[in-house]
């Protein structure tokens, strides 16, 4: 198992710079997910760690050794590709054993590793088939098997579940998580799906335009996003953003969204809000924090929000209500017992202890200090 450190990493294609001096580390045994929209550079970073792309600036350090000029075959990494990259002319058995064969392992060791891997991934019956005779899920398991058969120091995953259907994606996600819990190999996982990031990661690196927006545990990113981009990217449905102004009234401090009634700020957050009275801000509230069912511990932080139902999406366990405050569309998550006919007005409450305030211009999260 290894520790990976990325220092001031830069990547340029001619005059076009795509990675802008980023820094992060992956600790021994950690599962780190690089997440971001298409074109943010996450796959480029992964490929540089693998040695498949050259480094334009900065360093990649694996286990205290700078590996910028070390070829992929000498970095002891294994990679799972988005399109599986199984060798079409080889059987599953040969695919699984290829890495060990290239490293000169004895035949008995290769056979044992293939058998062990096949048992773990339950692909023993597929060993003599060619990749074209496998389903998408089977191919992906073989691709993962090819990576783990070698028992490398570092696993790299490049959007491995993108080509699978929704149900299979959930199954494979669970399998990857179980494998990591079993093997505890240092892993770097690239995805554009924030659900995968939240469910798999020990820590998440959120990227945009070749720059790191925030690094943190899933709960940190979810509960304390550093800016509007992270707040909107993490969480599904996405956070509601409302242009607002902080106002002080006799009862205390309130956040007044444009076109909506002021929402009182709970005492715990008054210090934060009162520093920005009169200021234009962006109020962020997650859909599950505008709802009709609350526990007693948050009653003091509830602010009433009446919403006119424009659209209702029943999900079974919840119902999503689409409405507006002023001109801005909002999404609320209510329990399925709530009557949600189009045109009807629902009396909901916003849990203001979970509100997020962002600078209206820069989008940065406002903090007390």
């Amino acid at each position: 198992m290894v520790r990976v450190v990325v220092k001031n990493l830069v990547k340029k294609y001619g005059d076009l710079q795509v990675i802008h001096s980023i820094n992060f580390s992956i600790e021994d045994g950690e599962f780190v997910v690089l997440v971001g929209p298409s074109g943010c550079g996450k796959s480029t970073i992964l490929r540089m760690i693998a040695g498949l792309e050259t480094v334009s600036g900065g360093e990649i350090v694996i286990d205290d050794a700078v590996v910028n000029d070390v070829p992929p075959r000498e970095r002891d990494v294994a990679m799972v590709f988005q399109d599986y990259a199984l060798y079409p002319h080889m059987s599953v058995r040969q695919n699984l054993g290829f890495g060990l064969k290239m490293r000169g392992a004895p035949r008995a060791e290769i056979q044992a590793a293939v058998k062990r891997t096949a048992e773990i991934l339950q692909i023993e019956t597929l060993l003599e088939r060619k990749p074209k005779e496998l389903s998408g899920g089977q191919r992906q398991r073989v691709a993962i098997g090819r990576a783990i058969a070698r028992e490398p120091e570092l696993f790299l995953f490049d959007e491995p579940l993108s080509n699978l259907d929704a149900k299979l994606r959930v199954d494979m996600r669970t399998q990857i998580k179980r494998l990591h819990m079993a093997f505890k190999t240092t892993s770097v996982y690239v995805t554009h799906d924030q659900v995968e990031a939240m469910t798999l990661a020990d820590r998440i690196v959120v990227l945009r335009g070749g720059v790191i927006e925030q690094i943190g545990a899933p709960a940190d990113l979810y509960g304390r996003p550093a800016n509007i981009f992270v707040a909107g990217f993490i969480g599904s449905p996405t956070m509601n953003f409302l242009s607002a102004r902080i106002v002080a009234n006799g009862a205390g401090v309130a956040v007044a969204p444009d076109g909506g009634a002021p929402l009182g700020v709970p005492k715990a957050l008054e210090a934060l809000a009162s520093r920005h009275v009169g200021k234009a801000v962006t109020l962020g509230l997650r859909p599950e924090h505008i709802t009709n069912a609350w526990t007693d511990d948050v009653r003091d932080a509830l602010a009433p929000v009446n919403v006119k139902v424009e659209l209702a999406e029943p999900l079974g366990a919840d119902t999503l209500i689409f409405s507006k405050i002023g001109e801005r569309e909002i999404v609320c998550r209510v329990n399925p017992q709530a009557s949600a006919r189009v045109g009807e007005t629902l009396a909901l409450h916003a849990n203001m202890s979970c509100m997020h305030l962002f600078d209206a211009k820069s989008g940065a999260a406002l903090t007390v200090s």
Partner: protein
Amino acid sequence: MTISRRALIADIGTYVAFAAIFLFFAGPLLWLFSLSIRNSGEVYVSELRLLPKEPTIVNFVNVLHHPLFPIYLWNGLKLSIAGAFGAMLFATPAAYALSRFRFKRRNLVMIGLLAFQMISPLVIMVPLYRYMDGIGLTDSLPGAAMVYIAISAPLFTWMLKGFLDGIPQSLEDAAMIDGCTRWGAFLRVILPLSLPGLTSAFVLNAILGWSQFVVPFILISKPALLPIAVGIFNFQGTYSQNSTQILAAASVLSIIPAVAVFLILQRLIVGALTAGAVKG
């Protein structure tokens, strides 16, 4: 007009067009075959008839009994195979580089390959002859084969590049991560997968080499070294003035191998021509 009537008219029009195109290309071949089965009295008759009144195979017998004819065939085979094989040796790494590597002026190299391909060999034949003569490679099969290779390599490269473009780059990435060098990834993964494309391009280039006339005509004068395309030409001077039917018979015999190979391997050949045209 109903849809079915319109479809019928379209079908009829399609077949008429096919028939016209067929006649345009097959017409000369049919006339060639007709000449080859005529006796000397029927060669210059004024009436237009494909089937002569007294068809005969004696022309074919005469050609096959000619002592140099099998040598012409063998030379043609050697040159076409050597040319295609040599072109493959040069074209394969070139096609791989053009397909996989991003280097400065890559597009210029590819356009240059195409541009040079368009230059007719006739344009360079005189200086080429002087050059080859100067280094002692005229009247030699290896010398002619070198020119065959030079002429075939650009086309071979283009065909193979199209085929390699269809092989995902992630396969080489996976092989290099699994422990291969780039050369190892090429040998163990890319080359086996590109065998169909290689075979197709090889066959097509060999067929084109079989019909090559200008290069051996200029560079080779010894009868025993001539390939079939030029050897047929010499049939004209071998016999008496009424040698048209002999020449026709020799021509028919010379195209039979190429046509046979094309018919047997047409799927491979079409594959070589259309490689890379469609994703997937």
